[in-house]
C-alpha cells in the first residue's frame, strides 16, 4: 500500500469538508484495502467514517426502512424487520462474500464495491476502467465472468454485488450528502453502464458520501427468491444471479420485479419484462416470456456466451421459486 494520511471526522459535514479529489472514505474497507494492496487505487488520504452516526436501521413514516450506510452486511441480513419484510435482501446478502467479510463490509461500501474483472485488478495490464484510454484486454481475453448486457467497446466488466441486485429489485433509494448538499438517487440511477467512461461505476460526484439506503414499503415479502449461480456452492461471485419478487393474487401475478446480477455493469432490470407478467398466471410460459424480454439484445464473448441461456433458465427458476413462497 502507498503511504496516505488518515482522518477520523466525527460528523458527516466534517467528513465532506475534509474530502480532497484523491481522498477516499473508508468504513469496512474490505474492498478498498484490497484495491490499495494491488495498487489499483492509490488515495493520498483515507477519511475514516466509522465514527459517524450512520449505523441505525429505522422504520420510515411511509412504512419502509431506512438503513444507515454503516450498518454491516451481517447486521442488515439478520435484522428481524429485514428478514420479515424484505427476505429477498437477506437472502441476497447471505449469498455474497463470507461471514468474516459480511461482519466488516457496510451497506454503503457494498454499493461502491468495484468489479472483479481480472484486468481491472491487475495493474500491469491495460484497462479503460482503471486507466482511461488504455484499452480493454477482456474483450479478446479471459472473459468468462464478463457482461452479456449493456457492455460497450470500452468495457465489458460486471458489477459484483449480490446486495445491489436485491436493492434494485426492491427499488431502494440511496441517500447521499456532499459538497452541494443532500440528494436521493433511485437504485436504477445509482450505478451506470460503462459507455465511453467506464472509470465511473456510479453517478456520485467527488466528495459525496452515502448516508443511508431507503427501502420503500412494498408487498413482495410473501413471494421472493434470490438465485445465485456460481462455480462453487459458497464464497464465489455470481456468474449469473436473479432477484425475483412477485405480488400474487391467488395463482395470478399482480406485479413483479426481476433484477439480474453478474451480467452487466449494473443490476439489470427492464420495466417491459416485469409488465409482461402482470395479470398472467405464474407459470413457465409467462416466466420464459419475461426472461426473453429481460435478455433481449444480450451478446456474449468467446468464453461467456453460456451466460445467456444460463440467465434465461435462472430467471425462470427464480420466478418459479418466488411463486412458491419466500426463501428465508
Amino acid at each position, binding site marked *: 500500500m502507498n503511504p496516505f494520511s488518515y482522518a477520523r471526522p466525527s460528523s458527516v459535514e466534517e467528513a465532506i469538508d475534509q474530502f480532497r479529489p484523491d481522498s477516499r472514505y473508508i468504513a469496512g*474497507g474490505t474492498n478498498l484495502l484490497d484495491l490499495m494492496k494491488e495498487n489499483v487505487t492509490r488515495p493520498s488520504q483515507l477519511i475514516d467514517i466509522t465514527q459517524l452516526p450512520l449505523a441505525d436501521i429505522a422504520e420510515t413514516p411511509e412504512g419502509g426502512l431506512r438503513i444507515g450506510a454503516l450498518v454491516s452486511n451481517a447486521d442488515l441480513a439478520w435484522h428481524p424487520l429485514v428478514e420479515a419484510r424484505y427476505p429477498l435482501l437477506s437472502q441476497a446478502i447471505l449469498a455474497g462474500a463470507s461471514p468474516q467479510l459480511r461482519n*466488516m463490509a457496510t451497506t454503503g461500501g457494498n454499493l461502491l464495491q468495484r468489479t472483479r474483472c481480472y484486468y481491472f485488478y491487475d495493474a500491469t495490464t491495460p484497462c479503460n476502467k482503471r486507466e482511461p484510454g488504455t484499452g480493454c484486454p477482456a474483450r479478446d481475453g479471459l472473459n468468462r465472468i464478463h457482461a452479456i448486457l449493456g457492455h460497450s467497446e470500452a468495457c465489458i466488466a460486471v458489477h459484483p454485488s449480490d446486495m445491489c441486485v436485491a436493492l434494485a429489485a426492491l427499488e431502494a433509494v440511496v441517500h447521499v450528502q456532499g459538497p452541494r448538499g443532500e440528494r436521493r438517487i433511485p437504485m436504477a440511477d445509482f450505478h451506470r453502464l460503462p459507455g465511453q467512461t467506464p472509470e465511473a461505476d456510479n453517478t456520485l460526484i467527488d466528495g459525496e458520501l452515502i448516508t443511508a439506503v431507503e427501502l420503500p414499503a412494498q408487498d413482495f415479502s410473501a413471494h421472493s427468491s434470490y438465485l445465485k449461480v456460481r462455480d462453487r456452492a459458497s464464497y464465489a461471485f455470481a456468474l449469473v444471479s436473479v432477484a425475483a419478487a412477485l405480488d400474487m393474487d391467488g395463482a395470478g401475478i399482480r406485479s413483479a420485479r426481476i433484477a439480474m446480477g453478474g451480467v452487466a455493469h449494473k443490476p439489470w432490470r427492464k420495466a417491459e419484462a416485469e409488465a409482461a407478467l402482470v395479470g398472467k398466471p405464474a407459470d413457465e410460459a409467462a416466466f420464459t416470456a419475461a426472461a426473453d424480454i429481460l435478455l433481449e439484445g444480450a451478446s456474449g464473448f468467446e468464453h461467456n456466451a453460456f451466460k445467456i441461456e444460463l440467465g434465461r433458465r435462472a430467471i425462470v427458476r427464480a420466478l418459479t421459486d418466488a411463486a412458491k413462497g419466500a426463501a428465508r
Partner: protein
Amino acid sequence: MSETSTATGGISACSITLQLNGQSREVEVYPWTTLLDLLREQLHLTGTKKGCDHGQCGACTVLLNGKRINSCLTLAVMHDGAKLTTIEGLAQGEELHPMQAAFVEHDAFQCGYCTPGQICSAVGMIAEGRAETRDDLREQMSGNVCRCGAYPNIVAAIEDATAATRERLAGAKEVTP
C-alpha cells in the same frame, strides 16, 4: 524519525490502545498498517497467519469485539480501544479452549496453516448462533479455506466443541457484561 519520515511521505505513526487477549496494549501504527501486520510484525503474535492477504482464505481470522473478521483487510489505526482476541488468547493458561482441543482430538488439520483462522472463525460462528445444521455450519465456515482438504474433520471438530464453546461464551459474558 527523519529516515522513517522520508519512507512514509512525512506521515507519522499514531498511538492506539488495544485490549489484546485480555491485556491492554498501547502501540504505534502507521495508517497503512493492517491489523494482521500489527499482530505479526510488531507484536510478534504469529499465531494469526497471513495466507492470501486479500480476504480470500480466512487464515488471518481474529475476533474483533467478539466478531470474526479478516485481519488482513482492516487497518489497525481504525480500531483504537477495540477488544481483540487472537488464537493466542483462546486457551486459559495450559488449558486449551474446547475448540482447540476438539481440533486436536479430531485430527482436523494436516499442515496446520489454516488452523488458527479455522478455530477463531468457528468460535465466532458459534457466538453468532446461526448455524443449526451441518449444512449451515459448512456454509458459514466457507470463508476459511483448507488446502489440505481436512474439511470433514474440521466439521466434526466444530460440531463436537459447539456446546462447550457456547458455555465458555456464556461464562465470558457474565464476567464482562
